[in-house]
């Protein structure tokens, strides 16, 4: 098949029309709801989702919920407000820090961090990262915990299993409380919760089950991240949002999605993945992307492993019959 640097280019106008039609149809005919509730973070995916919903349903049938907590970047709220002003939909701010504190999110997370770094102080910042050299070697994903004190000094260690699991479990309370908050606003209006995950997040499992994965529809779930950027350009969303590096906005120290989960830049990952799905020979992919065949094969293996390893996240509750 034809494979070149533009294989993931889309006709953004046509895709937008199609998505608007789908969003209207699913909300009205399948879900029997009359509007859309979206968690907006100032990130590219929630921005494009909100802009599409405003176009599909009209801005009066859209509400963007901003749900900052004490580790959120202040830029998130500022960008979310700018987005809402441009597309004319209402916003509601729900600070979820108190709820998270009540659930023990911060205490449980910090307890696990201190099991690795006993000197960790709650006023310091922390983040989890994975190797980002995944094309150099076919490596497993393992996780480093990095802490930073007020003086900017950092320490990093590979995490033992128990600390990793507890930090993730505590941090996932954030996405789950956000989902709960979104459903409050949806049920109050008899509207639907619209999820914002793209194909990269959905299929490789970069979401929290019953957290940001919990929604009534996910209009971007079939689109690669670099295609979401193409829609953003077409929809003319604020330039700062397009140019902002995607982060998890979950950990107190800022961590990019590349560092935390994907281990590759989005263009390379999406092109590799597309090539893998369409059985493009590794030699051809290597030529187009300027990589070695070994790098291409490492990339294929890493993507495939993430898809397989996160299958559990994508399964609905299993029935016995």
């Amino acid at each position, binding site marked *: 098949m034809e494979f070149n640097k533009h294989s993931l280019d889309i006709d953004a106008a046509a895709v937008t029309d199609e998505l608007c039609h789908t969003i209207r149809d699913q909300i009205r005919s399948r879900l029997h709801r009359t509007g859309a509730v979206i968690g907006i973070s100032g990130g590219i995916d929630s921005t494009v989702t909100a802009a599409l919903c405003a176009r599909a349903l009209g801005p009066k049938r859209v509400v963007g919920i901003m749900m900052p907590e004490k580790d959120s970047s202040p830029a998130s709220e500022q960008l979310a407000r700018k987005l809402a002003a441009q597309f004319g939909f209402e916003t509601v701010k729900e600070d979820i820090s108190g709820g998270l504190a009540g659930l023990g999110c911060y205490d449980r997370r910090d307890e696990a961090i201190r099991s690795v770094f006993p000197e960790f102080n709650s006023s310091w910042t922390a983040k989890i990262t994975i190797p980002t050299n995944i094309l150099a070697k*076919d490596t*497993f994903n393992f996780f480093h915990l990095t802490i930073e004190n007020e003086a900017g000094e950092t320490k990093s260690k590979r995490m033992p299993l128990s600390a990793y699991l507890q930090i993730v479990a505590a941090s996932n309370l954030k996405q789950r409380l956000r989902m709960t908050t979104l459903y409050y606003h949806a049920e109050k209006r008899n509207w639907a919760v619209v999820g914002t995950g793209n194909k990269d997040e959905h299929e490789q499992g970069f979401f929290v089950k019953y957290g940001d994965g919990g929604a009534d529809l996910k209009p971007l779930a079939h689109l690669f991240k670099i295609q979401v950027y193409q829609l953003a350009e077409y929809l003319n969303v604020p330039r700062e949002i397009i140019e902002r590096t995607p982060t998890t906005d979950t950990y107190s120290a800022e961590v990019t999605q590349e560092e935390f989960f994907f281990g590759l830049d989005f263009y390379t990952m999406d092109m590799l993945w597309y090539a893998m799905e369409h059985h493009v020979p590794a030699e051809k992919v290597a030529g187009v992307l300027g990589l070695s065949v070994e790098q291409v094969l490492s990339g294929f293996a890493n993507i495939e492993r993430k898809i*397989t390893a996160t299958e559990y996240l994508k399964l609905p509750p299993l029935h016995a019959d």
Partner: protein
Amino acid sequence: MAIDQAVVRKELRQFIAEAFLIGDDQVEFSDSDSFMKSGIIDSTGVLELTAHLEEKYGVVPADAEMLPSNLDSIDNLVAFLQRKLA
């Protein structure tokens, strides 16, 4: 210290069965089967596996050794332990 390959193989199989197959030692997998591809362990399981290597054999894989070629089958694990404990 050379390892007794047959003993280590048996110990690793027992660990995999207990830790990942809820004690079901009837699940069939060959010594060369990829744990990942056969769905026996996931990325979290790899951490559990490395914790076991440390606890049982005193071997802590370096970051650069966290590779499927070292850890993703009984054969690979045995060869890895043999190199590390030689």
